[in-house]
């Protein structure tokens, strides 16, 4: 059960060197923050910052952070067995830490930096060089760094979503390296393709207002790849594997709903009509999908489950982002209801196919995200967003083409990227914990902790180490009954 301290030290040193070099790279620049000529060219005489827009974008950034932790952490944490509760929560939490640093050091530059051939951003903005407090190329009314930090939160939640697929069996050290690699080689390029200035999918006209392809398809499809490469949990299909704390899961789902207003309505980058419209359709799609899933399950299985309603809400929230700046409230009811129905059935399908996507990331994010990207092509209308486009039902069948290309491109990049990264890690660090560690649970084997100690007595736990030695000198207190 002991992880060799040697290899851990190596890991720590590796990260340290990585950070130090990137920090060093950016340092001089930030100390003299006058934009470099290049950056200055990109950011012409700064337009006036709007306090309302900035307030909204900062609020939205905070909301999207909340989605990952505690939102997703609790949503996922409640669904695993008690012996893996903490390890599952940890995966979301530590991704927040990891990607927050990765994004500042190089991720933002790769995703949104000066375009290189439509496929990737350049390294010009590494360590946030030239990413300052005046409005940048992506927004006229808020500081460039506000846009950067808003996007950071998206870069955080996407790999966190994937963790649901391989929950309860993956080595923590490998997981950390996977996260960094995936963010760098899958997420950052894909974000550039769709949202980066000059990215090829965006240029093609594919609509993705708030991250249907970039966030949900990419995580859902990577989840499929991960479930296949990592393999099933021990006992899957034989032993009962059921959620250990559904109140936490529902609380997490509700926090996701709450935070999602930042995700979608924040993507307007301004606080006005577009944000309002996105806010309204987000709420309606979530609601309608919760009902869609619940009634599907009720009709097909005889009972409306609470986990089903919560999952349905998430499915609706997953389906609406790409269209959230382009569709009407009534369209969002349909998008949501279909999402609930589809994702419910996708989750049922899983148990027939036999791969072990522990927390149904494929069924919810893969299927829901794909449906959302298609639905955008169906329901988009310039009546809502004059800067958007019309979809099929508004008379523009061609938009469907762009959507389908974007979907396929995301599927391919995410699937191949994930398989390659995982195969390399499997061959080098190893993906899974040893069998006995899986049986004992990841909380104990990876972190030497227990999620709960709800019983009174300590059950023979005795303190050790220097501390206990020191205390032995102390008189033992007498405890009255």
């Amino acid at each position, binding site marked *: 059960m002991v992880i060799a301290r040697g290899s851990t030290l190596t890991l720590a040193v590796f990260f340290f060197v990585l950070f130090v070099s990137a920090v060093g790279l950016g340092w001089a620049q930030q100390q003299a923050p006058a934009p470099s000529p290049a950056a200055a060219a990109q950011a012409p005489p700064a337009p006036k910052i709007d306090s309302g827009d900035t307030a909204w974008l900062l609020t939205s950034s905070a909301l999207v952070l909340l989605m990952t932790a505690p939102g997703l952490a609790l949503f996922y944490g409640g669904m695993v067995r008690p012996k893996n509760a903490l390890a599952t929560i940890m995966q979301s939490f530590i991704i927040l830490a990891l990607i927050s640093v990765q994004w500042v050091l190089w991720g933002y530059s790769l995703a949104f930096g000066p375009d290189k051939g439509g496929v990737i951003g350049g390294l010009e903005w590494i360590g946030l060089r030239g990413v300052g407090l005046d409005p940048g190329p992506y927004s006229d009314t808020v500081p460039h760094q506000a846009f950067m930090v808003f996007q950071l939160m998206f870069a955080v939640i996407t790999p966190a979503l994937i963790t649901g697929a391989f929950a309860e069996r993956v080595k923590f050290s490998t997981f950390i390296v996977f996260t960094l690699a995936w963010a760098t080689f899958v997420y950052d390029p894909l974000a550039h393709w769709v949202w980066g200035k000059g990215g090829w999918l965006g240029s093609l006209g594919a609509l993705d207002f708030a991250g249907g392809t970039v966030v949900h398809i990419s995580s859902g499809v990577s989840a499929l790849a991960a479930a296949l490469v990592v393999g099933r949990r021990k006992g899957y299909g034989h032993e*009962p*594997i*059921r*959620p250990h704390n559904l109140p936490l899961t529902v609380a997490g789902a509700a926090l996701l709903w709450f935070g999602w207003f930042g995700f979608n309505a924040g993507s307007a980058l301004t606080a006005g009509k577009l944000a309002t419209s996105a806010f309204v359709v987000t709420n309606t799609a979530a609601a309608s999908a919760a009902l869609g899933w619940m009634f599907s*399950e009720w009709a097909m*299985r005889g*009972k409306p*489950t609470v*986990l*089903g309603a919560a*999952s349905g809400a998430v499915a609706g929230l997953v389906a609406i982002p790409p269209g959230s700046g382009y569709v009407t409230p009534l369209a969002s009811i349909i998008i949501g209801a279909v999402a609930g129905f589809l994702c419910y059935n996708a*989750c*049922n*399908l*899983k*148990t027939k196919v036999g791969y072990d996507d522990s927390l*149904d990331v494929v069924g919810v994010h893969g299927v829901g995200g794909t449906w959302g990207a298609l639905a955008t092509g169906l329901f988009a209308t310039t009546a809502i967003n004059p800067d958007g486009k019309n979809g099929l039902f508004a008379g523009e069948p061609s938009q469907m083409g762009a959507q389908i290309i974007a979907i396929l491109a995301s599927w391919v990049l995410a699937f191949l990227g994930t398989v390659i990264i995982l195969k390399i890690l499997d061959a080098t660090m190893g993906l899974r914990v040893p069998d006995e560690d899986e049986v004992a649970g990841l909380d104990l084997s990876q972190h030497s902790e227990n999620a709960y100690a709800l019983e009174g007595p300590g059950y023979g736990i005795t303190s050790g180490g220097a501390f206990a030695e020191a205390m032995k000198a102390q008189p033992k207190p007498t405890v009255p009954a």
Partner: protein
Amino acid sequence: MKKIEAVIKPFKLDDVKEALTGIGVIGMTVSEVRGFGRQKGHTELYRGGEYTVDFLPKIKVEVVVPDNLVSKVVDVVAGAAKTGNIGDGKIFVHPIETAVRIRTGERDEAAL
């Protein structure tokens, strides 16, 4: 002395306790257990999965009494715990060789 050990339905605990105190038995130890038997379980649904649960929550009551009280206690517990439905549970009688009250060191019947 004997130990009467009864496995009962959880919501019957109060009735059993009252019945026992009613006949002057003022000590007992209870614990949560799960029972498997003729009583049917239920089904749980979680996402795609459907689970059949066949261990059901029960309460185990343990009470040590002098030999002369045994049959009375058995009858009283059986009466109080009975609903007449399947799964009402069992009573088992064990021999006990010694009993000690930790506080005083009293032994056997004096210890109860």
